């Protein structure tokens, strides 16, 4: 295995190397020398250039960086929605490149929960059905689906809205429903791409509260944000610039300001 080292990251935090040295087997996410280039009419357009990252169970990671730095691209690869051009990605120790389409679908269904910036609820379904949708694809029976959906809706404080349509509730509430949907199959990992991007700062704080509570239960959370206030909720901040990780630092959970 060739490990490409980026000589360009002076702020690279020492503990990344430390974790590498530990060869930690039970990392939730292990990304090694990851490259991604999009095919464009003008030829391949490199977006991720030698990304290395290890995330351990129970971590709460904020990915930051300017627009266009490759955060979403990276997140999509982590979520098995897209594949890297080069390099390795191990999810809970399994090399995703070796999995078939149905297996990656199963990973998205059970192991990973997605939260999107635009909520992405299905507009014609009531909230309970929206939340229960992942369970449909895991073959759970109707009554059981309904019960589990109700339980997670209760958890995000929207138990009374099970039969409402998404259009009847606010953006913050929709994002809570989306989180409930991400949770319903008890994933190990929640990936959120700018989950507070469409929300006002107060609602954003509330949503971060939900994520923190989930993290306290032991769920690994990786979220993208470009707001420092939001990133401050995470225990660890990773900064992207031009397709590379240029900063990776842990903060105490109670620290008020991020180190970057």
């Amino acid at each position, binding site marked *: 295995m060739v490990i490409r080292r980026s000589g360009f990251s002076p702020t690279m935090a020492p503990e990344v190397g430390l974790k590498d040295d530990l060869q930690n087997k039970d990392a939730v996410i292990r990304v090694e020398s990851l490259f991604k280039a999009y095919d464009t009419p003008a030829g391949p357009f490199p977006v991720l250039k030698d990304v290395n990252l290890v995330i351990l169970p129970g971590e709460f990671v904020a990915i930051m960086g300017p627009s266009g730095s490759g955060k979403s691209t990276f997140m999509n690869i982590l979520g098995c*929605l897209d594949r890297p051009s080069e390099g390795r990605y191990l999810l809970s120790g399994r090399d995703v490149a070796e999995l078939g*389409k*149905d297996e990656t679908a199963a990973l*998205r*269904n059970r192991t990973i929960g997605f939260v999107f910036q635009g909520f*992405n609820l*299905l507009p014609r379904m009531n909230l309970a059905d929206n939340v229960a949708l992942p369970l*449909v694809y895991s*073959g759970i029976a*109707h009554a059981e689906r309904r019960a589990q959906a109700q339980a997670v809706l209760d958890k995000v404080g929207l138990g009374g809205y099970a039969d409402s349509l998404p259009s009847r509730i606010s953006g913050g509430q929709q994002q809570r429903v989306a989180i409930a949907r991400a949770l319903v199959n008890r994933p190990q990992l929640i990936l959120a791409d700018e989950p507070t991007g469409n929300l006002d700062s107060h609602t954003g704080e509330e949503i971060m509260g939900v994520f923190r509570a989930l993290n306290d239960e032991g769920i690994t959370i990786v979220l993208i944000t470009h707001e420092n206030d939001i990133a401050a909720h995470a225990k660890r901040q990773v900064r992207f610039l031009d397709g590379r990780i240029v900063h990776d630092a842990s903060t105490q959970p109670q620290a008020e300001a991020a180190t970057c």
Partner: protein
Amino acid sequence: MLGAMLQEAWRAMGANRLRTLLTMLGMVIGVGAVVLMMAIGQGAQYAVAQTISSMGSNIFVVLSGYTSTGGVRSGSGNAPTLNVADAEAIAELEGVDTVAPVHWGSVQMVHGSNNWNAWVQGTTPAYLDARSWPLAEGAAFTDSDVRAATRVALIGRTVAQNLFGDENPVDKTFRIGQAPFVVLGVLAPKGQNLEGRDQDDLVVMPLTTAQRRVFGTPFQGSVRQILVKASSAEAMPTVEKSMEALLRQRHRLRDSADNDFTIRNLTAVADTAAETTRVMSLLLGAIASVSLLVGGIGIMNIMLVSVTERTREIGIRMAIGARERDILAQFLLEAIIISVIGCAIGLVLGVGGALLANQLARMTVVVSGSSVLAAFGVAAGVGVFFGFYPAKKAARLDPIEALRYQ
């Protein structure tokens, strides 16, 4: 899983009700047209088959060289070339089952104040045999009636109704001119023949009675035609050949002379009629199938639009764990539901249309269980066939591309 999928298909169809209904309409029209055309086509085939079986099977009609084109009444002119002895000779031939000489004409009949003009067949008891024609009431005349030329007759249903009304005609008397005739029996109804003539508007009486007491032909023993029934369909070609040879020999025709008689194979005529209706009903079905095809293309078209419109939804579903086959099944199910519901409605309308055609246009229609089943099979097939490509297209979407779709 299926329950959830049905519910989702229903929801998706309900979200665009007008479009769903219009798409269904294509199937409704297609299936309706197929069912109606099959009903009419099969009805025509059935009617022809009925008529053919009413003719009797494996029948030849040997027509006398004297072919009277109209004026039967006078009885004058040339003698018919066929005679009773010819009939008896034909009866001896290999493969011949029954032979009945026939002398015919039309007469004015009177009973009380009722008048009726009917077709008379003077013949032998074998005639009813040859034509497989049972009696509805009474009994047939016998050979001794033929020998004695007694004034007895069998009448068809139409004649019975017009002459006797509600009375039972058996043993009643009607007159032809001044002469009284006793009705021995009433023939079972047969309906129309291939030319559309009412076969029940008929009087059957002994040959001799017709010749001597009704038409008064000057040519005793000669007949206008001979009905010949072969023992089987396979025997017909041989019988035709040997009959021709026999009659040529009996009539002492030179090799160069034309036949002074004509042999008509009624079964061949019937086969042609049956074939014609069969082709007609195939044609009707084919034309109707085109509308079914158009309906199917309509489904495909709408499903393609639907897949494009719901690209983002597909992306979301994939992101939360839908496999390709889940997406495929979802869209396929929708196409099948549309086509099956459309088919059910089309079926009802098609059957309704067939009944209407039967009531209003007096057409014979046949709606068979197999054609109903076939319609459903075809509809489901159309749904799968035309739904598959759009569904496959949906299933093959790249999750990332689909999620990005606005």
